[in-house]
């Protein structure tokens, strides 16, 4: 398979369908669908999506669900042909309640329903036990948001993610902190797999860069009061405070930092890089820096429209919708390229895919992690996230970037 970016493929397919009924797909594998030359048969392909749709993280779960939904609606509108059949994708979205046990039940349900691939799960804690079940059934799984490095270290061939893992992102953030002159750093995490993982990697990178970690404080992902830990932080006189956790806590935390008179800079990961954060932090959001894997959404060819499309349909993006969208698109593109919806057939294609997603280039390394994915840092300026700089990703970006240019013209 040649390395073609998504849009090129999609556009060319769209054109192909409009102009000549089923031009390019005509030479299909001879065996099953050979009898369908004139009216192309329609097949329904189920794609699973699992995330918490109830409970405290339901807003994020629904966001993933919507991202995948949008991708599937767009692909259905295109009327894709795979193996000579008109393909209608159907999203099977299940609530895993962010509970590992429910996660495995949901995974088994997906397997039972013979989904062609799975988008999810949202949390690392559900993704890891579920991946065992998908692996046993040979179903590829692309998580839009699980960041625990262990997920892809289990040796499962079908386990992918379109999100930088904790190690990748924590490193970039730690190096950035040191580079911008942070000498005394305080670190807070929310004691979730995500927050703690990110904070630990950040700490490693910051220490390696020569910064002094003056305090390590902890909260929970359900907390709203951070004044006592922030008071301890204040006593240590840091010049930068890093928070590993989600926006629901990061917002109030930034606000409380301000009210306690802490002047240190506030730095967060992708969990904090949301519109929600700015609303929750209020005036304290100004100047806060947070990272997000991938390239800036509004600066990329092909992803300009995404925000508008998504927002007009489902309301504001929480955090991971673009990644869920990309995960779904990647999965479908692999099916199209392999000309098969059979997991065993398109999985090798998926593993080698290189495409331009709305969040950045998507290409997997041998484990299933993003290969050299860029990570962008954003700063809040006048109540909006502004791209500050993009770190890393040269290799993948250069491999993918030249390609779209000719296709676009």
């Amino acid at each position: 398979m040649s390395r073609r970016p998504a849009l090129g493929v999609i556009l060319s397919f769209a054109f192909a369908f409009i102009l000549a009924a089923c031009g390019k797909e005509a030479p299909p594998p001879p065996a099953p669908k050979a009898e369908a030359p004139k009216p192309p048969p329609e097949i329904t392909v189920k794609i699973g999506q699992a995330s918490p749709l109830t409970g405290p993280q339901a807003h994020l779960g629904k966001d993933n669900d919507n991202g995948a939904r949008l991708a599937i609606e767009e692909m259905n509108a295109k009327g894709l042909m795979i193996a000579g059949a008109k393909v209608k994708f159907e999203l099977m979205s299940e609530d895993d309640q962010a509970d590992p046990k429910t996660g495995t039940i949901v995974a088994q349900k997906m397997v039972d329903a013979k989904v062609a691939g799975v988008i999810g799960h949202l949390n690392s804690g559900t993704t890891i036990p579920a991946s065992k079940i998908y692996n046993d059934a040979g179903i590829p799984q692309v998580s839009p948001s699980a960041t625990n490095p262990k997920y892809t270290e289990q040796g499962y061939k079908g386990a992918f993610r379109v999100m930088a893992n904790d190690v990748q992102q924590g490193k970039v953030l730690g190096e950035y902190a040191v580079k911008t002159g942070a000498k005394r750093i305080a670190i807070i995490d929310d004691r979730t797999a995500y927050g703690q993982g990110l904070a630990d990697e950040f700490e490693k990178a910051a220490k390696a860069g020569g910064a002094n970690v003056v305090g390590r404080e902890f909260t929970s992902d359900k907390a709203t009061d951070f004044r006592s830990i922030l008071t301890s932080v204040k006593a240590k006189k840091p010049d930068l405070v890093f928070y590993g956790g989600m926006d629901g806590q990061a917002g109030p935390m930034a606000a409380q930092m301000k009210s306690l008179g802490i002047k240190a800079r506030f730095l967060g990961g992708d969990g904090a890089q949301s519109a929600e954060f700015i609303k929750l932090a209020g005036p304290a959001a100004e100047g806060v820096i947070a990272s997000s894997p991938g390239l800036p959404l509004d600066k990329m060819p092909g992803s300009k429209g995404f925000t508008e499309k998504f927002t007009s349909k489902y309301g504001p993006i929480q955090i991971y919708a673009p990644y869920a969208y990309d995960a779904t698109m990647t999965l479908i593109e692999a099916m199209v390229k392999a000309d098969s919806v059979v997991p065993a057939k398109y999985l090798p294609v998926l593993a080698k895919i290189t495409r331009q997603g709305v969040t950045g280039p998507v290409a997997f390394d041998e484990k299933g992690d993003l290969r050299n994915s860029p990570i962008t840092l954003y700063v809040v300026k006048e109540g909006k996230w502004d791209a500050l700089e993009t770190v890393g990703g040269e290799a993948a970006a250069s491999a993918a970037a030249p390609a779209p240019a000719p296709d676009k013209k």
Partner: protein
Amino acid sequence: MTGDWEKLKRDPRFVWPAFIALALLLLALPFVADWALGRAWVRIAAFVLLYVMLALGLNIVVGYAGLLDLGYVAFFAVGAYFYALLASPHFGVHLPFWLLLPLGAAVACVFGVLLGAPTLRLRGDYLAIVTLGFGEIIRIFLVNLNAPVNITNGPQGVNLIDPIRLGDFSLAQAHAFLGISFPTVYNYYYLFLALTLFVIFVSMRLEHSRIGRAWVAIREDEVAAAAMGINTRNVKLLAFAMGASFGGVSGGLFAGFQGFVSPESFTIIESIMILCMVVLGGMGHIPGVILGVVLLVILPEALRYLGPLQQWLIGRVLADPADLRLLVFGLALILVMLLRPSGMWPSQVRRRELSATGNPARNGPTSVRDAGE
């Protein structure tokens, strides 16, 4: 009707065929469920069995001894982590299942006594809050014991836990037996079934033992029980220890079954759900507790079909099933309790105690406080 049932229960002409039919049903269940509903339901059935063990453990504490425990999941967690840490690459230790399970039960037992000892003087809701605190303390330690020395691996959880293996027979592989293929989930189902039956047996024997009667005596009136010569301290500790050991066993099974444990499986909500199973089914009554478990584990899963159901009934999905699922679940909790305040299938003995005859004090509004304290 209940009278007939009592009579029927003692009639061998009914009991044996019913027993055999039930046994066959339980043995055939994975095949039937897989064929009719999908393999996810075999997994759900396995979880039902796991929760039966848990609920019967809590039933000893809450149902028999009348001690309201809101932190029961702690023992489940202890059992699960004990197995996970000693049978995974985390420490590089891989102890066999047959050793870990009883040891896990014993460790949970010790934790049960540790919890029980300081709470002996507490009653009712004070006990509830202390047990709740205990459950949270255990969870917080699991979350945080990754530094300075990494014991539990913190929030990241323990992964790649060894599947349960009996000698050379690994449950994590499909086996063929008499020409029938048994996938992984089936193997776990049968193992859980065997252990559940054992737990039910132990529970039944305990209920009618001297200790069981002592528990009930304490539940009904602690002062009177002490006056009758029951050593309330030891008997209460025994209740905590026994209940905890059941939790430890199911925890170990859970870890082996899932292959991954992390602290988020052991939240207070889990404790509350197990308590709901016990109370909703019928405290202190084994068949009732089992019924409660079956209902509360299956209901949220069954409610996933709300979407397809709407499709079938009115042709389109009006309300998102994800929105409705837990809402209906909450509603069901309320309705069942309103319709059957002593549980869906309460024990005969307890029902007699609560009936209008006899003790008038238990009949009036005061009994809200009096019963069980």
